[in-house]
C-alpha cells in the first residue's frame, strides 16, 4: 500500500509536468494526488466500502486540499485539481469494458462500463460539491470588486 501511495505521488507530479504546471506547484500537486489516492485505498481496503463511494470521499478530500493550497500559493484551483484527480480516474474498468465488448462478452462488458461511469460520476460529484461550495464566496467577492470600481466614477 505504501508503495502504491509513493507511486501515486510520482504519477501525479508527472501529470503536472505533462500539463506544463508552474514549477513551484509541482510538490503540493503530488501531495494532493497522493492524499486522494490514499483516502481511496483506505476506504476501499480497510473499511471495505464500495469503489464509487471511496472515490467520492477521496475526491472530496482532494478538492478541499486543492482549495486550501490554491489560497496558500495564490494560484487558480484548477492547477491543483486537474492533476490531483488523475490517480482516481477509472482507467481499468474503462479498458476492461472495452476489452470484453470486443471479445463478444457483452454482459460483462456493459457491467464494467457501468462501473466506470459510476466511478467517473463519483469524481464529478465530489468536485461539484466542493467547488460549488467555494464558488459562493468567490462570486460575492468578485461582484463586490466590480461594483466598487464602477462606483468611484
Amino acid at each position, binding site marked *: 500500500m505504501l508503495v502504491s501511495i509513493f507511486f501515486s505521488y510520482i504519477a501525479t507530479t508527472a501529470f503536472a509536468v505533462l500539463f506544463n*504546471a508552474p514549477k513551484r506547484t509541482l510538490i503540493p500537486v503530488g501531495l494532493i494526488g497522493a492524499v486522494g489516492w490514499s483516502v481511496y485505498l483506505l476506504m476501499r481496503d480497510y473499511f471495505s466500502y464500495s469503489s464509487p463511494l471511496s472515490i467520492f470521499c477521496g475526491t472530496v478530500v482532494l478538492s478541499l486540499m486543492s482549495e486550501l493550497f490554491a489560497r496558500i500559493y495564490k494560484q487558480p484551483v484548477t492547477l491543483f485539481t486537474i492533476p490531483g484527480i*488523475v490517480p482516481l480516474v477509472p482507467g481499468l474498468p474503462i479498458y476492461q469494458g472495452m476489452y470484453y465488448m*470486443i471479445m463478444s462478452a457483452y454482459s460483462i462488458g456493459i457491467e464494467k462500463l457501468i462501473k466506470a461511469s459510476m466511478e467517473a460520476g463519483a469524481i464529478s460529484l465530489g468536485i461539484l460539491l466542493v467547488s460549488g461550495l467555494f464558488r459562493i464566496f468567490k462570486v460575492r467577492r468578485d461582484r463586490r470588486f466590480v461594483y466598487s470600481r464602477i462606483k468611484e466614477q
Partner: protein
Amino acid sequence: MTTEKIMTMSQEEVLNIALTAGKILLTSGAETYRVEDTIIRLCAWRKMGYVKVFVTPTVIIIGDEKAHGFTCMTRVTSRTTNLSLISAVSEMSYGFGKWSLGYKETKSFLAELRKRPAPSKYVTSVAAGIASACFAVMLGGNFADFGAAFLTGFTAMLAVKQLAVLRITSFWENTLAGMIIAFVALTCCQLNSDCTQEKIIVGGIMPFLPGVSFTNGLRDFMAGDLLSGNSRIAEAFLFAASLAVGIAVVLRIWLA
C-alpha cells in the same frame, strides 16, 4: 487612485488586451467562467462596468447592452492544457491595478506569453512514460510491467507529438495513440512472459484519457454555462471513443 497607469489606456486598448488574455486562457484549457471573470475583471479595472461577455469552448464574444454598442469576437480552434499560462494570466488580471506596463508593452507581454516554449516533446514523453509506469504499478503490476508501461506511454506520446506538426485532427491523433499503445503492450507481452497485458495498456492510456475536458465540463455546468458544459463533455466522450477504437482494432487483429 487617479495615477493608475491603466486609466491612461483607452477603452479600446483595454478591450483588446482583455480579448487576447481571454484567448490565451481558453486555448490553455481554462474553464468558461474563469475566462469570463478574467475579462470582466480586466475591464472593471478600467471602470468599464457595462461589458458583457459570452464564452464557449470555441468562441469569445465581448459586447455591451447598448443599441449602438461595440462587439469584438475571437475564434478558438485548438485547445491544449497549459497550466502555467492560466497561472500567469490570472496573476496579471488580479494585479492589473498596479500594472506598470503601457498598452504596447502589455500586448507584447501577452504575445510573448503565447510564444513561450512548451516543454520539449522529449520532456513531455518522458513524463507520460513515468506516469504510465506508475499507474501500472499502482494497479498491482510488477517490475516488468513498470518497464513495459514506461515504453508504451513514452512511444505513444512521442509519436503523437511528432505528428502534431502535420495538424491531423485530434480524433485521429487519439486513435493512433490507442493503436501504438496496444501494439507496444502486446509486443512486450510477447517478449517477456512476466508482463500483464491489462496493466500495461491501462497504464499507457492514462495520459490520453480526456480527464481535463471532463472535469472542466462539469465545472462549467456548476457555474451555469450549460452550452460549454455540454460541448466539453461531448468532446471528452469523443476522445475516449477514438482511443478505444485504436486499441480495439489492434487487439482484434492480434488476438484473432
